[in-house]
């Protein structure tokens, strides 16, 4: 009887430690909006490049350093947080001519697969939903670093850059004035939960 009780306790401890290990293996992070950004650049009149930024990025990701394929992320960008440092241009970019932020208030990205490609690099395939259109895209992600934050929490950060064609997302206005290719740079910092 007593031996049975001991066996139960040992089993419970073993299961508990397995669960704890699983939790530690794929750390869950919450995106820190204050230290994350989504930027884009596009050619203007074919003579120059101008840049814009979305300031409101939120979401979650889990990162498993030992088994990157088990990692995943989901990010949401408020389209209305767009800023190009020009009030009139921002008004136009938010209008139905481009991002149409009232009809499509959020831009989302959700991972479908993650593969390790190097020491600190990953290849990610994700669904990007922009302007109400969802397309699968693949891009490389670089882990910038990881370590303790000022409040005691643990943080990690990632950068990526990829190019999309705006017409793929039904943003076609002013084809002569603005380029077709949009280069997107994403910098994410997450706080471990």
């Amino acid at each position, binding site marked *: 009887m007593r031996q049975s009780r001991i066996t139960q306790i040992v089993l419970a401890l073993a299961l508990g430690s397995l669960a704890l290990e699983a939790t530690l293996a794929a750390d869950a992070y919450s995106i820190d909006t204050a230290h994350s950004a989504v930027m884009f650049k596009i050619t203007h009149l074919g003579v120059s490049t101008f840049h814009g930024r979305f300031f409101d990025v939120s979401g979650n990701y889990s990162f498993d350093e030992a088994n990157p394929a088990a990692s995943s992320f989901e990010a949401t960008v408020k389209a209305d947080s767009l800023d190009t440092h*020009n*009030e*009139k*241009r*921002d*008004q*136009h970019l*938010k*209008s*139905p*001519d481009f991002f*149409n932020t*009232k*009809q*499509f*208030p959020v831009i989302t990205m959700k991972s479908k697969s993650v593969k390790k490609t190097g020491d600190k690099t990953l290849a990610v395939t994700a669904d990007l939903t922009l302007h*109400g259109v969802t397309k699968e895209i693949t891009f490389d992600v670089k882990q910038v670093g990881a370590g303790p934050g000022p409040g005691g929490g643990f943080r990690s950060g990632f950068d990526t850059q990829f190019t999309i064609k705006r017409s793929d997302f*039904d943003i076609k*206005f*002013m084809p*002569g*004035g603005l380029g077709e290719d949009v280069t997107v740079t994403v910098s994410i910092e997450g706080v471990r939960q």
Partner: protein
Amino acid sequence: MIAPTALLLGLGIPALLAAAIVAGGQRVAIARSGWLAGLALALGYGAGHAGFLGWPAFPARVAEQWIPYAACGAAVLATLATASARSPRWLDWVLRAVLLGVALALWLRPMMAYQWTAAASAGWLAGLLVLALLACLGLDRVLESLEPCAAWTAVVCTFGGITVTLALSGSLALGQIAGSAAAAATGGLGATLLPGRRPFGRESVLVLVTIAAGLLLCGLFYADLPRASALLLAVAPLAAGAIPRAIRERSTLGGALAVVAVVGLVVGAAAGIAFASSPPFDSAY
């Protein structure tokens, strides 16, 4: 910068198409030709919308893409109303309410999905439907009381004002398609200068209200069209009713010029408010 081809497709074709419908259609519909104005506006606007932005897929993905479909639906109702001349007047109003109600729901679907509660959605839909039907009622009386040339002039001024005001309110694309409506109306106006009477009939009012309502609501809710500008543009063609009958009926040219002065004043105020509300224009952007 708009390419010359886009200008031809978005403005030239609508004007020519509308003029051809109003001028040519009258030969086959002498008895009751008032519905031709609606048909000309709807098809002209649709052609211009397709010329500038492409013909939208069905079902439409964004609110403004429903406007050409709603305009064509209104033109079909105008034609049916003419074909069944003995149908009761209440049935006409029911059909108007159904078409405008469906169109409003389609235009405002993003607002209902992201911004409004169910109660607020119901309130907005009901309120805007009442306003649209009141606009129909007012325009029935005003446009039928005007000479065809003056009636078309009021429509041209209204859509011209909507074009300028929307372009000042952050969306050049909405301004462009409003320009297509103005071009179609200009074509209709041109056709009235030909011999023969080509009235802007009561049957066509629904098409006018549908296109104008779609443009104004998309500007109001999805671009930065000020509410005061939207309201002024909505009542602009009704202002033609304030012109004394003696002036309206003095001559074709005199009536048209009086309409330009009165309706132009209202749409000018709407454009002025939009200009004042807009962020400072920076030519470098």
